[in-house]
């Protein structure tokens, strides 16, 4: 099962390597990994999406907590959480296909961020399902470049 882990870490050199090394060394999977600073100086937040059976996920969480530079680990999968990922997609766009592509952009509520004679670059934000859906829609036009951030996630205020 897929799990999204919020991992608060000390922002020190090598901390990413410690986390990544833990996953590779123990044969765990990282599907996506996102790292960025938090509002607190010296603390970074990693969002890791991973998969495995219950026992594997339990081990991943415990092993992460065991790292000296890890401050806190929260498994968001057991909670109501907002989950988002941003993707930049550069699509081949001809005079005949541009209108169709813009319609898709509209339907998916994404944003065109760059345009040229034969290309359109758009910014897509959403959960994993939405990303997969738009990629499916755009593939036939020819996706030239594709860059995604990996999941970021947050617990919802109201848990019900």
């Amino acid at each position, binding site marked *: 099962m897929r799990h999204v882990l919020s991992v608060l870490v000390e922002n020190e050199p090598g901390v990413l390597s410690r986390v990544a*090394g833990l996953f590779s060394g123990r044969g765990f999977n990282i599907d996506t990994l996102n790292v960025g600073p938090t509002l607190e100086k010296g603390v970074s937040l990693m969002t890791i999406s991973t998969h495995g059976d219950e026992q594997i996920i339990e081990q991943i969480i415990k092993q992460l907590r065991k790292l*000296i530079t*890890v401050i806190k680990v929260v498994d968001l999968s057991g909670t109501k959480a907002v989950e988002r990922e941003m993707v930049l997609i550069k699509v081949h766009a001809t005079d005949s296909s541009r209108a169709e592509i813009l319609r898709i952009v509209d339907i998916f509520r994404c944003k065109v961020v760059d345009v040229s004679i034969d290309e359109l670059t758009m910014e897509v934000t959403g959960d994993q399902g939405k990303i997969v859906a738009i990629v499916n829609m755009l593939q036939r036009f020819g996706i030239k470049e594709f860059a995604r951030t990996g999941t970021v996630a947050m617990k919802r205020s109201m848990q019900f």
Partner: protein
Amino acid sequence: MELTGAQILLESLKQEGVQHIFGFPGGAVIDIYDELPKSSIQHFLVRHEQGAVHAADGYARSTGKVGVCLVTSGPGATNTVTGIATAYMDSIPVVIFTGQVPTALIGNDAFQEVDIVGITRPCTKHNYLIKDVKELAHSIKEAFYIAASGRPGPVLVDLPKDVMQARTEFEYPKTISMRSYNPNYTPNRKQVKKAASLLSKAERPLIYSGGGVISSEAGEIMTRLARRFSLPVTSTMMGLGAFPGNDPLWLGMLGMHGTYAANMAVNNSDVLLSVGARFDDRVTGKVNTFAPRARIIHIDIDPTSIRKNVNVHIPIVSDCLNALTALEEEMGEITGVQWEDKHSSWVKTVKGWNQEHPLQYETGPSGKVKPQYVLEKLYELTKGEAIITTEVGQNQMWAAQFYKYHRPRTWISSGGLGTMGYGFPAAIGAQVANPGKLVIDIAGDGSIQMNIQEMATAVCYNLPVKIIILNNSYLGMVRQWQELFYNKNYCATCLDTAPDFVKLAEAYGAEGYLVEKSEDVVPVLNKVIASPKTCIVDIKVEPEENVYPMVPAGASLTEMLLV
């Protein structure tokens, strides 16, 4: 007053109560060595950096204190890796200081530069690269704190040369608090109550103890608990010595080369109390048939150990000493259970297994010395009071089986990593820490050659370590596997060109003895035990003797090959 980095390092070590360090100098650490003679710390010059870490590790295992070593950058640092991994697998508190090229050169492939922090990240509990002399004292304090607390382990501190030369005000932190590291020492009382209640209902209880009992100094309380509530005890190899090997409730080690009684007891027990052990594959055999009838209580300070390999019913994350103390209290409050009567038939059954298949060996017609006999005699002659270190392989298993350990920290052996070449330098460390005690390395003719250069260290510092080589001219354990599972294809396990160990001992200025007949074993051992010098005893043993019982890799514990 301002001190240099080198001075701060040595002052910090003093503050940590360090008296002895093991090391080997080099360009990147000359500044430290330049200060060393002015310090009260005694330095032991090893002949290879691997030896330094093993010695620090043996020092730590035999005392419970943090072992310390100091080596240079590059090859000096990489040579420590096997020693660090050994300590990591067995949760031994060691702090390793490595030299590093000056900060300005880091990343430039400078002479003797290596990213040792990167290399050792997966085999240290934590590690540091000190980039600013102002961080030095604080990081050293943290390193010692992390190494010794929680589940102990090795911590490496990488020291660039310019940081050792830079100056700053020295103030050693009195305490340390880290928001990201707070080991839990106290058990959840509810869980302990549950465990006590489960044990009170058990018909066939068994204690399965491990190295955690040694490191948390819980041997005494575990022994009391076992005797008071009449619980038979087995342990992992790492746990030997926590429970007296001559106690009637002692079943011997369990696992691949465990006793018949211990493995049968695990298989038949209905409540297994695991204390400070981690259900390693050498212990469990085929993991889904391990303790099939038992409800399992698992006490461990490291949450990752719990439910890593087997599912447990009552996990207790705690220091073993605190958990067992609480458990004894809770069990003491349970009334109406006549523990001894209740468990008497189980204890009888277990003892029966022991009588059925005790640890034994055949005294064959060849007249060659049996390695097991050597260990039996050594136990008798030393009354179980020696500190025994071992190399790895058959020698290690016979030493685990046929010498009985009465007290914690008298058995010192590389368990998790299985490092050949460990025993001798570890014996040096143990001897430094225990000057008056008899320290004996049980070795094989293969593994002793992996760190034989430390003879110079032992002789140089008048360390009267005794090396007993059970010499079968084979890499015996691999040969045993080849015999049993690979059609006797003895590929690369025959060591017929070995040095003359007697001459080798003498060449180093030590004493050497050769034993070829059983009747010479006792007189020579007596002579060696009485000798104030470093000694090698080369005992030519039955070449194709095997270690039994043996559970083939991947088989269930009950599928033992017996003598």
